[in-house]
Each structure stands twice: as structure tokens, then as C-alpha cells.
């Protein structure tokens, strides 16, 4: 048993829902108890989806268990077909149904429906959401594209204009909607036609056409790599490996696509992001060497680390992921930054690692946003699990050159705000700028800015007390290093069993740690 409070990923059938809800003409029959219908609200509330996800839950109850849950599944499947008339039906079980072993796929197939039934087995006690999305997408691709696979060994006919599929975007994906638009724009600049985008917006019939493309663009390996690998084996379709997040990675991606498509990369490379200039402009000097801690799904964490280090000149002091399936890739990337990767799905472990690394900026998920808030560290969200904030009304991709612009703002603004707050802090005792006064642009009487005085983390009990004059001095230290100064001094005092932290202790500690 694993003790969990907050989790980065839902169960695997939620991954399957993300694929089903992304597609058109597909209906998912899920053998599950009533409470599992909560998953609908992820789509209708977080993503603000205007229609119910195409999912029918059998919602069996305790009294059905001894009796006939199998009939319930069959009736639900028939009803769903009659009502929604999908091109195909996906059938699976949630964690509870897995235990009662009804074989939903087998049962649904006995119904003789006039449309294909695709069963998908997602081991709920071993796997998680992204794995579920990946497996579901793979099973669907196999089921619909499979029958058209050429005989093994067939050589692809060389075509005049090579086209591609875009694989990976799902419902409830972190900025997937906008990433697809931006990547389509880049491909248009290169003159590469798009055959099918899947699963987002694709029908089962579209999946059957996947083999017609010359190569695949994989946007999110967490979801699409398994399917892309299968397509490569069965259709001899190569696929991209560069993920176009950041300026450098976007250039790599363009080069890779141009090579696969046999086109000139120049028109797309000529597009420029504002990031390089913004990063070189002198006001960005203060960003140099900012200590950044990065955690997220593998794709976004690796990309953020590269941007942080090479496009913003931060120092990457932590890199980790909850995507165990991609632990190797993240470990390799971390080694490149000269650090050890953190692979865990326990947010408390991440919190401890952040505390130990004492970063000046956290790039993480919503979970790390809360951790950072508690620790008083600026933070930007770069990865799922998604939150309603991750579906902004404006165009806000992570990928491509526009994505790089977005990322510059996303990664730098929290620090800029920090600087502004520091200035406010310097005037803390001034009659107009004291903590209780709101920001001037909010008008008189506005609420005090909650972030002006970052929360100091709770002290361990063994820590020595602070003498008033030392405490006062501490307050003069800019807030964004104050937490660190406090921790260092306390550790220094604890190591030396100094019961009262005086001004002397404070400066001794400073001298000690700056060596």
C-alpha cells in the first residue's frame, strides 16, 4: 500500500478518457461504480468542455455484485450505441470492475454491434493516467490502422510532397490545444501537409488513415511514443524525437522535420522568437545564475531545464519527474546539468528536495506551486496535472517560437514580481509603502498584497532563538534571500549548539557559507 495525499496522475482509465474525449465518433463504455463519474467534472469544469465526455459508466452497486454486473455492462453498451451512434466503441474497466473480472471487452463483443468494439485492459493497481492514455491510444491505432498495414518488408514509395501525422495531443492536456495550432503553423511554413492529428479531433476513420503519412510528429511521448513506435515498425514511418519547447529545441525540431520531409528548413527557421533578445537585453542581467528547481512530466521538465540553463542562463539545481516510464531520459538530462534526477510520485519528497536545494525559482506542477508558496519561493507552472488556470482564454502554447515567448514570460515574471516586492519591502517602514498598504495601481484601500511578506517555513524545534537585534537585521536582507539566510544561520547555530542567534552569529554564518 502506498500512502498518498495528492497525486500527480489519476488512474489509468482517466488516461483512456482523455483519449476518448479528445476524439470524435468514439464512445467509451466504462465498467465502474457510480462514484467514478466524478471524472466527468475534470473535463467539464477544468477544461470547461461544453459537452459531456463521451463516456457511459455502468455504475454497478453492491447489490449487483452477487448478481449480474455482466448484464449491466451489456445493457449499458447497447444503450450507448443506440443513443450516441458512434463509429466505434471502446470498452474497459475501472479499478473496481477489474476486481470483479467480468471481461468487459469480451462481453461487449458478443453483442454483435455493427461497429468495431475495442477492448482496452488497463491494470489499475500497477499503472497510472499517462500510461493509460498511451496504452489506449496504441490499442486504437492498432485496431484501426492495423488492417491496412503493408506486408512486412514493403518499402515505402517515395512521394513528391511528404506529409505527416501529429500524434499525442489529448483532452485535458497541458496546453495541447494551443501547441497543436503552433506546430501546425510551423509545418505550414515548411510546406509539410498534415494528414491526421490524433487523438485530438480524430475519428476512428482518421486513425485508419494514419499509414498514409510519410512520417509522424510526436508531440507528447508520454501519450504517443508507444503508438509511434508501432507505426514505425508496421508502416516504416519514422517519427520526430525533438520536442519543440524552447528556442533551441524548436530549431532542432524544424531541422528534424525538414530532414524527414525533404524540405528546406530556412522558411521556418527565419521565424524568430523574442526570447533570445529579451534574454540578452540588459535588464535580464539579474536573471543570471538564478537557482531553478524543476519538476513535472518528463517532456516538460526536460524542456524547461534546457531553457532555464541555455536560454535564460539560470542554474538548474534540481530536475525531476513523476513519469517513471521516462525516468531514464530525465536521468540523462539531469546528468547533463551536473545533478542527480529526482524520480518520485510523492509530492512530499519533492517538497523536501526543494527545501534542501533552496532554489530561487521553482518550475513545477500545481503541487509545487503550493509548496513554493509555503516556502516563499517564486514559482511558475510548466506541466500537468492540470488546473483550470492551465486553460487560459488567450492563445498560450508551450511549443514553437510563440511557445518560447510564452515561456519567457511564464518563467521570468515570477522573479520580476519578486523584485518588485523587494522594492516594496525596502520601503516597508515608509508611511506610504508599508506592508499594509495595497499596491498603488489597485487604488486606495485595496487589500494588502498577500505576497509581500513571504511565509517563513516552520522552524524545527531544536533551533536556537533569535535575539531581537539579529532578527531586525535579518529583516533588512532582501526577502528572496532572507529565507535562505535564516535557514543557513539556524543550521550554523544548530551545528555549533549556539542557543541564541545574535548579530555576530548572523554574520559568522554569512562568512561561513560564502566561503
Amino acid at each position, binding site marked *: 500500500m502506498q500512502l498518498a495525499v495528492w497525486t500527480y496522475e489519476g488512474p489509468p482509465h482517466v488516461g483512456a478518457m482523455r483519449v476518448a474525449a479528445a476524439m470524435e465518433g468514439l464512445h467509451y463504455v466504462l465498467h465502474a461504480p457510480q*462514484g467514478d463519474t466524478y471524472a466527468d467534472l*475534470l473535463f*467539464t469544469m477544468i477544461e470547461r468542455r461544453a459537452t459531456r465526455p463521451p463516456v457511459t459508466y455502468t455504475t454497478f452497486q453492491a447489490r449487483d455484485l452477487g448478481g449480474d454486473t455482466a448484464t449491466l455492462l451489456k445493457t449499458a453498451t447497447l444503450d450507448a450505441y443506440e443513443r450516441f451512434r458512434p463509429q466505434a466503441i471502446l470498452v474497459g474497466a475501472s479499478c473496481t470492475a477489474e476486481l470483479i473480472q467480468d471481461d468487459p471487452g469480451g462481453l461487449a463483443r458478443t453483442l454483435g454491434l455493427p461497429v468495431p468494439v475495442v477492448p482496452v485492459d488497463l491494470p489499475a493497481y500497477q499503472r497510472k493516467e499517462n500510461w493509460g492514455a498511451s496504452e489506449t491510444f496504441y490499442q486504437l491505432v492498432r485496431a484501426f490502422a492495423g488492417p491496412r498495414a503493408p506486408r512486412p518488408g514493403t518499402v515505402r514509395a517515395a512521394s513528391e510532397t511528404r506529409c505527416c501525422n501529429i500524434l499525442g495531443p489529448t483532452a485535458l492536456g497541458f496546453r495541447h490545444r494551443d501547441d497543436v495550432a503552433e506546430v501546425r503553423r510551423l509545418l505550414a511554413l515548411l510546406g509539410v501537409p498534415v494528414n491526421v492529428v490524433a487523438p485530438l479531433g480524430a475519428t476512428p476513420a482518421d486513425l485508419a488513415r494514419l499509414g498514409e503519412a510519410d512520417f509522424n510528429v510526436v508531440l507528447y511521448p508520454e501519450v504517443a511514443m508507444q503508438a509511434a513506435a508501432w507505426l514505425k515498425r508496421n508502416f516504416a514511418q519514422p517519427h520526430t524525437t525533438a520536442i519543440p519547447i524552447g528556442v533551441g529545441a524548436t530549431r532542432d525540431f524544424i531541422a528534424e522535420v525538414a530532414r524527414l520531409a525533404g524540405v528546406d528548413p530556412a522558411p521556418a527557421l527565419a521565424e524568430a522568437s523574442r526570447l533570445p533578445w529579451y534574454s540578452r537585453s540588459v535588464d535580464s542581467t539579474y536573471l543570471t545564475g538564478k537557482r531553478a528547481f524543476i519538476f513535472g512530466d518528463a517532456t516538460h521538465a526536460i524542456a524547461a531545464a534546457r531553457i532555464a540553463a541555455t536560454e535564460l542562463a539560470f542554474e538548474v539545481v534540481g530536475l525531476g519527474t513523476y513519469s517513471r516510464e521516462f525516468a531514464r531520459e530525465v536521468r540523462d538530462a539531469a546528468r547533463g546539468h551536473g545533478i542527480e534526477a529526482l524520480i518520485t510520485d510523492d509530492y512530499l519528497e519533492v517538497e523536501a528536495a526543494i527545501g534542501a536545494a533552496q532554489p530561487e525559482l521553482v518550475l513545477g506542477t500545481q503541487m509545487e506551486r503550493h509548496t513554493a508558496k509555503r516556502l516563499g519561493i517564486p514559482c511558475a507552472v510548466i506541466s500537468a496535472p492540470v488546473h483550470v488556470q492551465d486553460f487560459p482564454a488567450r492563445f498560450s502554447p508551450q511549443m514553437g517560437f510563440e511557445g518560447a515567448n510564452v515561456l519567457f514570460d511564464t518563467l521570468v515574471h515570477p522573479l520580476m514580481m519578486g523584485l518588485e516586492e523587494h522594492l516594496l519591502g525596502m520601503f516597508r517602514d515608509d508611511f506610504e509603502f508599508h506592508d499594509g498598504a495595497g499596491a498603488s495601481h489597485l487604488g486606495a484601500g485595496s487589500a494588502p498584497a498577500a505576497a509581500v511578506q513571504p511565509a517563513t517555513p516552520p522552524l524545527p524545534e531544536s533551533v536556537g532563538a533569535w535575539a531581537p537585534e539579529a532578527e531586525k537585521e535579518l529583516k533588512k536582507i532582501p526577502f528572496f534571500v532572507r529565507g535562505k539566510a535564516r535557514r543557513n544561520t539556524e543550521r550554523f547555530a544548530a551545528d555549533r549548539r549556539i542557543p541564541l542567534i545574535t548579530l555576530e552569529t548572523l554574520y559568522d554564518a554569512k562568512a561561513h557559507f560564502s566561503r
Partner: protein
Amino acid sequence: MSAIAASLPTDAGAAGCGDAPVLRERGQREVFCGLTGIVWLHRKIQDAFFLVVGSRTCAHLLQSAAGVMIFAEPRFATAIIEERDLAGLADANEELDRVVARLLGRRPDIRMLFLVGSCPSEVIKLDLARAAQRLSQRHMPAVRVLHFSGSGIETTFTQGEDACLAALVPEMPAEPGSARSLLVVGALAEVVEDQFLRLFAALGVGPVRFLPARRAADLPAVGSGTRYLLAQPFLAETARALDARGARRIPAPFPLGAEGTTLWLHAAAQEWGVGERTFREATTIGEQRARHALLRRRERLSGQRVFFFPDSQLEVPLARFLARELGMVPLEVGTPYLHREHLAEELALLPPGVMLSEGQHVENQLDRCRAARPDLTVCGLGLANPLEAEGLATKWSIELVFTPIQGYEQAGDLAELFLRPLARRARLEV
């Protein structure tokens, strides 16, 4: 005759729909499971911890229902059953003991631990009753370990609170003798509890106690002198357990709206033999204030037709309130479970012609809702935005269990919850 007496239901059978036919449906249910109750119960019982023994789905449900309410370290968690536990590689009971020991080690402030059963724990027949007993022996007196089921195969949404409170009843100390006391049953916001305490004091009804209490150690005593008022309509099991301890229920409608609150208080006052004059003196100001707060909203809501999808079992009392105090017209009142006995006074007050439905076939119900095109639809979060997108104004029902809505001072807020979606639509021009 006083205004109060006039509003008391005298000829329920004739006026109301106490015997109205009920549409019973079977099909897909679009409701939360009882685990959801943990989200408000853990805020209510402030030194209790809720450990769900379940799957990743259960953890994800809690996280999604708790939404933005990310607490530093919330007092709930899930012990996620893994393949090893199922395959018998690990002894599930030993695993549970280990998880609990680790948890309690981290949280010395915890006085009561609930092991909460889920669908998976029930299907694999993990005996949480025995586990709770065993763990209680190990961790008493520091921590008392109890158990209840919040599983989706046994409980619907608010039934989780019912199961939790029912688990507390055997733990309540025995009231020596047959001294009379009033027990208010069902989680209420503290501000509401305090308002009721003041009202009962003015009435001379007491001593008054609440279940659940704010702290595990303060569980109220119960005995044959205990009279209890249900503050929530979904407490069937809790009531049964209280009856078994000799307590007696005071039948009453629920304290929603000015009228509901008056009738609820009045039921207790009668039990205590409080004179009508004293009753009026104690309640008139509050009731007037509530009626006044409702008046303005009534103008806007009167005549509006409302449709309820089943959710919290609060549907019948809410429909009664909306119909009688705001002039709204309930079309269909869906409820996951219709407890005829506890709702008898409510059903008698419902206007005739209201269609009641119990259980759910969500697709059929959506068809009925679309055909009826109500002015306001009360439904769960999974349905709200899709219905809005179809042009139907909605009120998402979960807010009704998270917001203080009971009592005189909250009557206006309660009406406001139903008015806001309509007022909002009226303002929007794009």
C-alpha cells in the same frame, strides 16, 4: 392564530404531495460516492484523520472534489492498494498497520482515525471493522480508530457523512439516568451552530449538543432522555443508531429558509413544552429578518421553473423552500434516495403536482430536462457546463453542501445561490 401556527402543516395529506407517485429509475447514475463527504467532514472534526483504503481512483476523486483547497497537510489521505496487496505478496492488514503507524507518527495531533472503506476494499473483502479494532487497541488511548464505508457501491455522496456519524454513535458516552437533552445531528458550519445555540437558549431548550462535535473527545452523551433533531435529510443510518441508543427523533422539516427554520425550532420547542408566546419572542426577529432577506429575491425568482438532478438528498427540502418561500415552480425533484419517514413533513409541504424521482437514469433524465426547458437546473459538476452550453441556466449542487445554508441568517444566502446564475445571465450581453 399566530403566523407560526398558520404555517404549520395541519392537513398534510390534502394539501401537500405526501403520497405523490415517485418515478423510480435504474440506469447510469451521475453522482459522487460517499468518500466525498470527507472533504467537509475533515474540516468539521478538527482532530480527526480520514484514511481511505482504496485505489488511485479514490485518491483522485478526493483530490478533484477538494479542488483548489490544497491544505499544507490535509487530514485525509488514501492508502492505495497495489498489485502486491492483491496478489497476496504483501499481507493487506500488515500493510495497513504499517501505513497507519507511519501516518500517526507524523501527526501526533490526531485523536481519531477513520478507516474509510471504498469499492476496492469492499470487493476484496478487506475487513476494516477488524482492522479498526486491532489498531484501536494498539494506539489507544492516544488515538481512537473507527471505520465506515464511503464506497460508491454502497453510498451516494452525502451518505458518506451518514455512515461516518453512524460510526460515531456507538462511541458516544452513555447519558446517566434519563435527563433530557437535545442533540442536533448533521454537520453544520460553526456559525450556524452558534446561531442555533442562541435560539435554543432563548427558547429555554437544552442542554443542546451537536453531532459531530468539533473535537473527537467532545462526543456528546446519549441516552433515553436524548431527543434529536436532524439538521440534514440524509442521516438514515445515524438515526437508526441513535434510536438503538434510546434517543428519540423529533420529526420536523429541515431548517432551510425562514419557514423551515421556524418549523424545525418549533418542533423542539413543543417537545420541551415551550409556550407559543415565548416561542414567538425568541424567533420573530430572526424569522422577520430572514423573510425580509427573501423578499427582494422572491421578486426575481417567483414563477421560475426549477429542475433537480439527484445529488445530496437535500433536493426535497430545497424544492419545498424554493416553492413556498420564493414562489418557484419545481418541475422534477430528483433525489438519490427518498427517505419517506424523515421527509414526511417536507413532502407534506411540497406543492401538489411536483414530480419526484428516485435513483437515476441520467440519459433519460437529461431528455426530460431538455424537453421541460426549466429556467434553472440544479445538478452536479459533470453536467453543469454542458447544460449551460445548451442554453440552460444551472446551479451546481455541491455548493449547497459546502456553504452554510441552514437557519434564519443564511436564508437570504441560500436564495442568493439560486438567484445568482439567473442574475448573471441577465447581465451578460455577449
